[in-house]
């Protein structure tokens, strides 16, 4: 039977993949997708801890994470559309107007 540590390790690997995606990819949509991977890795941790502690709180936090992820995706993608309309690019390095 897999133990809590198995799940935590899997979740750590997924979180690492998500982090790497955010750092390595130069496409705003890909960065948002990588953030989704990270959120899901965290969800897995919550459910695994909840299961280990015999409590439902882990699963409830996951519902909150899901709603936040939905809100984040909606607003994030709206920003992506607005940016693309102004710059015709999805590369975050082109959006440097606020840099000084």
């Amino acid at each position, binding site marked *: 039977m*897999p133990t809590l540590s*198995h799940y935590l390790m899997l979740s750590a690997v997924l979180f690492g993949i998500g982090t*790497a995606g955010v750092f390595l990819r130069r496409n705003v*949509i890909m960065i948002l997708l990588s953030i989704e991977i990270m959120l*899901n890795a965290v969800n897995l941790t919550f*459910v695994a801890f909840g299961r280990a502690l*015999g409590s439902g709180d882990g699963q409830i936090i996951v519902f909150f994470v899901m709603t936040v992820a939905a809100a984040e995706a909606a607003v994030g993608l*709206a920003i992506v559309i607005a940016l693309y309309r102004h710059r015709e690019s*999805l590369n975050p390095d082109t959006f440097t107007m606020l840099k000084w």
Partner: protein
Amino acid sequence: MTQFYLFGTVAVAASLLVIAQRNPIYSVLLLIVSFGALSGLYVLLDAPFVAVAQIIVYAGAIMVLFLFVVMLLNAPQEETERDARAHLGRGSDPMRFGALLALALVAELAWALTRGWESGRFGRGAVSSVAALGRSLFTDYAFQFEVTSVLILVAMVGAVVLARREDRPREPMESGETQPEDRVAPGEE
């Protein structure tokens, strides 16, 4: 155990391919595969409701929204020279630093986890009944639940405002198109 490794391998492999893909459409699809595998893991963790919610909310709604935007922007692939830089080892300095940070994070997490490795199995007493979850959600977490609904409302208004085109006199070309807010609005449940 085999099920855990099966789903775990699928999740990790799909996630790796997500960040390795050049075409965002493939990335979105592979991410859905990864979410499916995670949903299987939730079933193994006696959380069937989370598993189904994962499919409905993530795979069924959020990912459709992503797919939608990728299709709407006609999936511009990363420019080739940038793409070459996006590969590990050949990146520019900030990128190399980022890759190092990600590796360091994974190494740290792995180190911490192997030190505290417990071989203890999960006890009994999993909370898998939807009724118990619902009761807890609407009593103990009632305030957080309400705040989330406000968050969703704000996100919905924000997305509509952000994605909408400014009201300038319309060129004849645009009049036939669906307005972007029509296209984006359906996703924000």
